[in-house]
């Protein structure tokens, strides 16, 4: 059985509408950016720089020349990554005005190790060339996001947290802006005493920087026919931050255990362990969502990973201080939309799929794409130009294709499909790929949607450790640590069919790191308020839509 046989009740057309608010109730801004992540904030920062040198244009854009909508409690609340960041894009963005030493990084990567794990051993293997991190900087993306937001505001941007963008406003075949979500609805959608309707936010240019599984990004790709040759595929990353007794002196990546190598499992992924200063360490498990075992739980694989000798010693005497989960787009070059613009619209960052899977990097691409989007938007706003003339925003696509972002992604384009064929075979293929810069094996190992994978019952859960509350934890404790305190009577923002077969319900039950789904008689029960909005459900047969602004996790260290 495949999850795609039970599609969710979701139609993108529900989320496209013409502006409907009366004139005096609409909010009008110059450039509207959806998402206060690295892409969106880089766009806002660059626009601030450009507008500083163009005061008449800034004045013509009105009281709010640049607005950034963020569905989390504040910038950073929904940001999560490893992360080891290549600083080149940030240097370009700030152009000498701010040095990397002033940015909230945890230090440069000096040493790194890659291990192939078995249950009892850790075999050191040479780091694949794509994974070399020397010169890169360790960061908490959540903290970096908060800092970038401060820079954006200092540059004149207006950041609007707790505001979800739920509908794309389109009329006359061009994007006019977005409609923000209602607040104060009850479980059944009814209006509560403090109901506050959303607003139409109109802008001359709209930039979607929503991150992985971007809601309006998906809607826009459908509406404007922008999908690429291959569908997008994702991995689910679950991570923790620990306060530790002894500092870690290197960046560690692992392959192998606890994932299973046989081709039938399709368990592609690994783990990372990064030092954050002297007293913190972050570790995470990343697994492709094309896995097939109904019982696979990335949350619990991470718990299992921690019992390995290599990690147990590192965490001994320490304390878990943060937890989170998020998907990563893994289709790479083959899954990129065929165009990242439409009349009045630009698409950046993870939402577009700009992630280098073998190098585990996406943040610097997000920043660069945001910067280039700002320049294209700025050019389109000049006197004598209109942002919705067909093709005027094509400048963005052109500049992106000429940039290192495109080069990098093209070079590693066949890596991921290769790993679909199991670790050993895939590893060899990946090695060949790296050596020949993407030429061998030849392309078009095309990607299948994650939800099309045939499910199997392969007993993965048997090895997951019971939660001991010291080293290993259960999902509800993890959700608590994410800071999630979404109100219980909020409407259900997750679209799934309720009456699915037990196998599918069990798949979701194990898959979800936040214990949202429960297999019950007749189908599945959804506790939407647990959701940390990782996006895994969208990959595996359901559809995540944005919940009420301000709800969900409140990440600070992830």
């Amino acid at each position: 059985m495949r999850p795609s046989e039970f599609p969710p009740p979701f139609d993108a057309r529900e989320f496209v509408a013409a502006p409907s608010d009366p004139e005096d109730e609409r909010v009008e801004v110059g450039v509207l950016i959806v998402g206060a992540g690295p892409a969106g904030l880089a766009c806002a920062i660059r626009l601030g720089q450009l507008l500083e040198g163009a005061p008449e244009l800034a004045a013509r854009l009105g009281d709010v020349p640049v607005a950034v909508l963020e569905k989390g409690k504040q910038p950073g609340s929904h940001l999560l990554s490893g992360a080891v960041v290549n600083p080149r894009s940030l240097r370009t963005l700030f152009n000498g005005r701010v040095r990397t030493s002033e940015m909230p990084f945890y230090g440069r990567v000096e040493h790194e190790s890659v291990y192939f794990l078995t249950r009892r051993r850790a075999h050191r293997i040479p780091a694949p060339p794509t994974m070399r991190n020397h010169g890169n900087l360790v960061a908490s993306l959540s903290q970096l996001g908060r800092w970038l937001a401060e820079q954006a505001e200092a540059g004149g941007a207006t950041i609007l947290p707790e505001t979800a963008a739920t509908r794309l406003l389109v009329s006359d075949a061009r994007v006019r802006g977005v409609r923000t979500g209602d607040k104060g609805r009850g479980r059944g959608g009814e209006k509560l005493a403090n109901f506050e309707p959303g607003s139409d936010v109109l802008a001359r240019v709209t930039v979607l920087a929503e991150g992985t599984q971007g809601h309006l990004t998906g809607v826009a790709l459908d509406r404007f026919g922008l999908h690429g040759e291959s569908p997008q595929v994702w991995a689910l990353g679950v991570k923790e931050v620990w306060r530790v007794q002894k500092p870690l002196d290197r960046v560690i990546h692992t392959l192998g255990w606890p994932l299973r190598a046989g081709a039938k499992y399709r368990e592609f992924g690994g783990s990372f362990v990064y030092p954050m200063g002297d007293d913190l360490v972050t570790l995470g498990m990343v697994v492709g969502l094309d896995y097939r075992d109904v019982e696979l739980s990335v949350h619990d694989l991470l718990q299992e990973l921690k019992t390995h000798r290599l990690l147990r010693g590192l965490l001994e005497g320490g304390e878990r201080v943060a937890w989170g989960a998020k998907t990563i787009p893994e289709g790479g070059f083959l899954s990129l939309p065929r165009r990242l613009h439409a009349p009045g619209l630009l698409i950046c960052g993870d939402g577009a799929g700009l992630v280098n899977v073998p190098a585990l990097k996406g943040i610097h691409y997000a920043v660069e794409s945001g910067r280039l989007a700002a320049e294209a938007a700025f050019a389109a706003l000049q006197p004598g130009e209109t942002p919705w003339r067909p093709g005027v925003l094509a400048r963005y696509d052109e500049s992106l294709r000429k940039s290192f972002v495109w080069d990098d992604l093209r070079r590693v384009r066949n890596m991921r499909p290769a790993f679909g064929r199991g670790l050993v075979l895939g590893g060899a293929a990946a090695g060949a790929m790296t050596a020949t810069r993407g030429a061998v094996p030849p392309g078009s190992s095309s990607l299948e949607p994650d939800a099309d994978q045939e499910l199997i019952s392969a007993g993965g859960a048997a090895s997951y450790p019971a939660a001991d509350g010291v080293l290993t934890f259960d999902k509800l404790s993890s959700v608590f640590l994410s800071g999630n305190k979404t109100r219980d009577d909020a409407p259900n923002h997750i679209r799934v069919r309720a009456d699915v077969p037990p196998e599918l319900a069990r798949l979701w039950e194990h898959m979800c790191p936040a214990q949202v789904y429960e297999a019950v008689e007749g189908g599945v029960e959804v506790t939407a308020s647990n959701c940390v909005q990782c996006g895994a459900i969208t990959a595996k047969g359901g559809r995540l839509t944005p919940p009420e602004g301000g709800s969900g996790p409140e990440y600070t260290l992830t």
Partner: protein
Amino acid sequence: MKIAVCVKCVPDSSAQTRIDPETKRLDRSGEAALNPFDVNAVEEALRVREEAGETEVVVISLGPERALEPMRKALAMGADRLVLVADEAAAGSDLVATSRILAAVLERESPDLVLFGQQASDSDGAVLQAAVADRLQRPLISQVAELTREDRVVRGKRQTEYGYDVIEAPLPAVVAVSDAINEPRYPSLKGIMGAKSKPQETLSLGDLDVGSEEAGEAGSRTTVLALGAPPARGDTVKIEDDGSAPQKILEFLLEKKAV
């Protein structure tokens, strides 16, 4: 009419809150948000204004400069203006010092009604309103779950251990509201965007004629002597029921004088 709402910014409950072992004070460097009960107080002020018309709602706080950001939420909800007393000398103020400073600001504003949230989520004392009311020499109604006004008299229905009292007081008065009183509104997008341009005043102790010896640790009458781990709960007992569990539970309750 003028309504003053006293608010406090508290560490966001989701952030890792901790006490700084050196200063023995709450480490407030993490994320801050408006104390949830104070949001109820702001909402109540807005409702009184909606009913009364021609009323100014001013939000007042004592805290660091960082508090301006969360306080703007009150402006986004609809409050007209904010006043923040931000002075390093006031850090570490206890009830005596805090109430003195707030009373000074309130004297300056001379509001008809002062609203407080019943308690603060970070220190749970439920004591500030009574201290301020005494300094202002104004009648106090606390723990109010329902507030009505007729001309210059307010009436509060409040919950006690014995049920509900109804208490009346003439304006000017001090009222502390419980979280049962209302469901705070969500600020509209226009409200959020308009908040920045509303008047925001920052005062120092000098602006209030409060000496630095009357504030902070110098002006406080209590002190934290030490911090420690909480006492262990004591041994946990876990038994399997063999039919005698109800009896054993009762014996346990009697031993602990819980019955």
